[in-house]
């Protein structure tokens, strides 16, 4: 069922709320990955011997953690893409051009809203 058109103010509020949601989501994902990355860097810097420990399928921690960081980046990126909301169609505040001319047209994320700018 088609949602009723929303006003310009409501659209602006929607844009802001969506951006805040995405920014917050981004910071959470960033914090999770940062902790994982810092663990790797600090072990290398202060306990390099640990990296030689065989931990999985005959592979040492250096290989498993290194591959883990690459895989984790991809998994977190996919999760972030899945959870993000799309910014509704809005006028760009700086340049006055359409910022998201076809928002939602090819987007698969949840939370999209159709906005009637008329």
């Amino acid at each position: 069922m088609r949602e009723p058109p929303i006003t310009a103010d409501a659209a602006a509020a929607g844009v802001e709320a969506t951006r805040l949601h995405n920014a917050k989501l981004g910071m959470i994902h960033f914090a999770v990955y940062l902790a994982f990355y810092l663990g790797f860097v600090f072990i290398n810097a202060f306990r390099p011997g640990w990296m030689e420990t065989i931990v999985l399928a005959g592979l040492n921690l250096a290989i498993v953690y290194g591959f883990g960081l690459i895989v984790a980046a991809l998994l977190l990126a996919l999760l972030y893409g899945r959870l993000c909301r799309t910014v509704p169609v809005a006028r760009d505040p700086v340049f006055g051009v359409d910022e998201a001319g076809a928002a939602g047209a090819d987007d698969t994320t949840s939370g999209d809203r159709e906005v009637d700018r008329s």
Partner: protein
Amino acid sequence: MIYDPSWSAVIVFLLFVIGTIGLSARLGRSTKSTEGYFAAHGQIPWAVNGIAFAGDYLSAASFLGICGMIASYGYDGFLYSIGYLAGWVVALFVIAEPMKALGRFTFADALDAKFNSPGIKAAAGVSTLAVSMFYLIPQMVGAGVLIRPLLGFPHWVGVVMVGIVVITIVVTAGMVSTTWVQFLKGSLLVLFSGVLVVAVLRRGLEVDRESFPAIGPLSADVLAAESSGGSIAGRPVIPPDGGWEDHPRYVRLARPDGVGFDLYRADPIREQAAGEDGASEDGDDGDGDGVDEEDAGDMVMLRQGQSMTELANDEWLVDGAPFGQGEGERQLRPVGQITRLPGDRDSTGSLGPIAYLTTLSESEVALWGSEKVELADGTATVYFQKPTPGSQVLRPGEHPVFAGIRGDDPTARINFLSLMLALFCGTASLPHILIRYYTVKDGAAARKSTIVGIASIGFFYVLTLYLGLGAMTSGSMDVTNNNMAAPLLARAFSPWLFAIISAIAFTTVLGTVSGLILASSGAVAHDLLGGVLGLQLSGTSQVRVAKLAAVAVGGVAIMLGIVFEELNVSYLVGWAFSVAASANLPALVMLLFWPRTTKQGIIASVIVGMVSSLGWILLSADTFAKVYGLDPDAAPVPFSQPGIVTIPLSFVTLVIVSMLTKPSNATAERSR
């Protein structure tokens, strides 16, 4: 090592070049506006943009440099792969969507979105130029390095050739052609790297004790007695003379063909006290190799090495014979051997990706070291084998840059932390990467293209470990220069694979340099001339100026690529990351997340970050040794990587200056 020119490589490369220039000319007809030139009208599909991210980002440093470093030192090169990829997390989670929302053509647009300040445009424009130049030089030098062995042309021909092709690509259709060239390059790079890795795994691992044989074990007393003119293993020993007598560790055996000599190095035999596999769980014996060992009496092993001597008349000798390929001449032989496999097998046959690593970790590999030896007729560089347990190859701390993490010097650990911080923060601050966010239509497309970029770049970096280790054990490495490790690995399989990988290496340079020149021309035409000097240009005129700027920047890049030929410039990419992370990231992040940021704060942050990181680098031990040729101990800064100091300094500067320049309530009220 002498490379025979590969005409198949020339043909494949020319096809690439003709194809990309043809594509650019075709796309150029529809690219007349500023939106088209700088941002491809924001109409690049997100999936294409994602692969173009990979094409933009995976420079010669990634492909040739990391593979070469892994091939020579093992796991340490993979640390760069991890750091470079981790930086994309910052780009996706923190930067991608706001960057698209704030900016239009250049990095300065985003920083200046709220303030419209010429000062911000000037600082960000200069920072873009500085970072891009540091990034450009190694790419251009890399082009010359590639073309010399492949086509037999001098270095400058390669630099000029790449420069002209790239300028043509950028000038014809700006971001549109640049994007498609990068898309093509990114796709081919990942695809054929995958093909090469499959070939490596199918070949498996194979012992080679013949290329560089070992003699022994011998008693040190016997060696001393025979060294002065006796015989070893039935071969006459050449009495040490001409300066070799000062280096008793080296023994020269006469060759049956009488052309030069075979050089051997005597290594004391060490017994491994921690078991046969050499793995030590609780540290090592202090020799830095991580293996708990003890001397096994006075027994030695002679292992064959190679030497290259530069004579006073600028001629070269290889193991005592003139350098060359003709009769009576010799050249350095390719290296990279496995000397022992688990279970003393001779070969493994095809291996899976995990079995490849576990088998290698239980094997022994001949890595190579080098040292300078002063002789009567010149200076010899002696290349010698370093038999290394595979478990040691697959751990961090073997490369000189990272060796400090296994030592007692705390500054070496700080240096490592600083490098990993710069890699993490640098990606999301590189102007030529950031402008790619303007080529898609909206924030969602920016986000999705970054995810595609992370997938393709991450996959490629996994491949780099196998490419490097494959080259390490391929018997095809150039002992004097590891930058050609990946193409030479391909040559070990097929001349056509070599041709394609070499051509892709060229295209790697083309793709990255195109992005850098475009970012630089935008900084000149849009930020500095338009934003700072206030030249009001129409769309077409601005494009014309940007194209002129691209030609000028390309010309400068060509000159720098020729001037820096002899300099080891691969570390300049590291400089670019440090400067970008210090100058750009703090301002961008604070603009997005701290509402009290002022324009003065941003300007100060960019300038302080740029000047402090550059100053630190110029005063570092690395630069003293590699650039100035001075004693590195005389360097005034305690470690070489600036990021851990200059990134926080830039943040603090922004906060302090913003607080000092915050508008009064009345001013803020009036401006509403």
